[in-house]
């Protein structure tokens, strides 16, 4: 795994994932299929040689997702007409953040902190100690004064809950709170038909 790719995913894909899932819901038959497509998009990103050429991360991700869905439709041969129609609408309009925004977003992991904030109390304390502050299992046991089994359990639980929150909500609210133009990301119905 290339570190720059991992970093790019952290910065651009994770906060956008929930939004992408919402878009995919309209073209996928089931929640399981949305999961499949999203994992395949991650796989496509993993295959990239570099990420320096990606000017508009969100548009790139939507385009990649669209290709994955198209491939699946071809492969499966049976596709609902509605899904086909919706696929045409799968695009990001004006999703490109301004360059300064890219710089800000790079630094800005507030969306991730705000998700961590919502973990249950003990889970949050353990999870932060282990995964954010990089304390060892032993140090966490000593400083929080809880049994080792609880540290293991809460670390795993925190990771699972965080993963679910990223899928369900991501960092989109955080994006939406800043510039108005970012709020236009999404599937848009054309009025001229």
């Amino acid at each position, binding site marked *: 795994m290339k570190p720059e790719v991992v970093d790019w995913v*952290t910065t651009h894909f994770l906060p956008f994932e929930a939004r992408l899932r919402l878009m995919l819901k309209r073209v996928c038959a089931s929640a399981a299929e949305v*999961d499949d497509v999203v994992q395949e998009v991650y796989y496509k990103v993993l295959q990239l040689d570099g990420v320096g050429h990606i000017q508009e991360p969100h548009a790139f991700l939507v385009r990649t997702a669209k290709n994955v869905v198209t491939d699946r439709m071809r492969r499966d041969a049976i596709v609902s007409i509605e899904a086909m129609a919706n696929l045409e609408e799968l695009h990001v309009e004006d999703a490109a953040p301004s360059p300064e925004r890219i710089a800000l977003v790079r630094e800005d992991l507030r969306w991730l902190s705000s998700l961590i904030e919502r973990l249950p109390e003990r889970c949050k*304390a353990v999870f932060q100690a282990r995964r954010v502050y990089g304390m060892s299992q032993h140090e966490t046991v000593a400083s929080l004064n809880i049994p080792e089994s609880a540290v293991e359990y809460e670390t795993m639980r925190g*990771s699972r809950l*965080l993963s679910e929150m990223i899928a369900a909500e991501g960092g989109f609210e955080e994006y939406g709170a800043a510039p108005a133009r970012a709020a236009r990301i999404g599937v848009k119905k054309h009025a001229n038909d």
Partner: protein
Amino acid sequence: MPTIDESATAWVLRSLGRELSAQEQRDLDAWRQADIRHQGAYLRATAIQHGLRRLGAGQPAALRPEGAPARGARQTMPVAAVAAQPAPLVEVTPVAPQPGQVAPARRLSRRAWASLGGLAAGIAALGLALPMLTATPGHAEFRTVQGELRKVPLPDQSIASINSGSRMELKYTDDTRAVVLDQGEAWFEVARNKARPFIVEAGDVRARAVGTAFSVRRLSRGAEVLVTEGTVEVWSVRGGEHRRISAGESAYLSGAAEAVSVSRQPREVARKLAWREGKLVFVDQTLRDAVADFNRYSVKKIVIADPALLERKFVGQYPVAAPEDFAHDVSAYLGVPLQISADRIVIGAARGRQPAG
């Protein structure tokens, strides 16, 4: 049955926590090869952990989760993060007073280190005339071995935090407070006294302060000065300009009579001084630089066997005494082999070597 994302998370946590056994590594490889969705989910889980590390790295100074956690967590976290440092790393030997007087424990915890500022103030409040206790008032020498960090109260109530592998001499007179940095790096919290300037000498480089906090690091050529508070004047005794640098700025002086290069990057200054907390913080540093940083603190050196890896960049935060953790993470992120022996840590496979057998 766990979902793909849950399995991926479990694998990533396991491989970041420690080195996988040969069997585990085979299982992981098999799992990843079984399905491209597994590979995608593995990237996703890795990126989440990377984000958490970056989050941790974003607050290098005191590791305080600012304005954040609710009760309980707020109470325990800063202390916990402070206590996370392995204790033996910090040894405290105050300059003048005998150990029994002010430093009952030779080895103090990180917490104790954190409260040393208070200790120095306490000494002052008690009215202990520190120089009287030393043979030659105002003269002393300090050394730190590799991996050792020391925080020493100076006779004038200034405080020096001395980084790994350093040597420093105190030459206080009635007019000036001179400190000669022969080797290594130190950060000074200078007690205000306009009548007696505080001057650090690093080779031909000089840094002068009246009341401020700054660090000087002696390099093979010249020195680097980082200012965290107030203003410091820097120059080379060989001539050239005198420059005033202020909080959040850093200056590099080659020692020759040429222009001083000053840059203003408060976050970078804070990052470079994370050693005071016993931490190394990386924000897009190359593997080459990160390894050089770790090797300052340890006799057990990290070696990069494959030069192609040297320019890879990293974000993260580690205790200075945890090169193995760092090496594990690098190996996991890059998917390169890792070999840890008694005296060194080798990351990556050497190129051009004959295959075994």
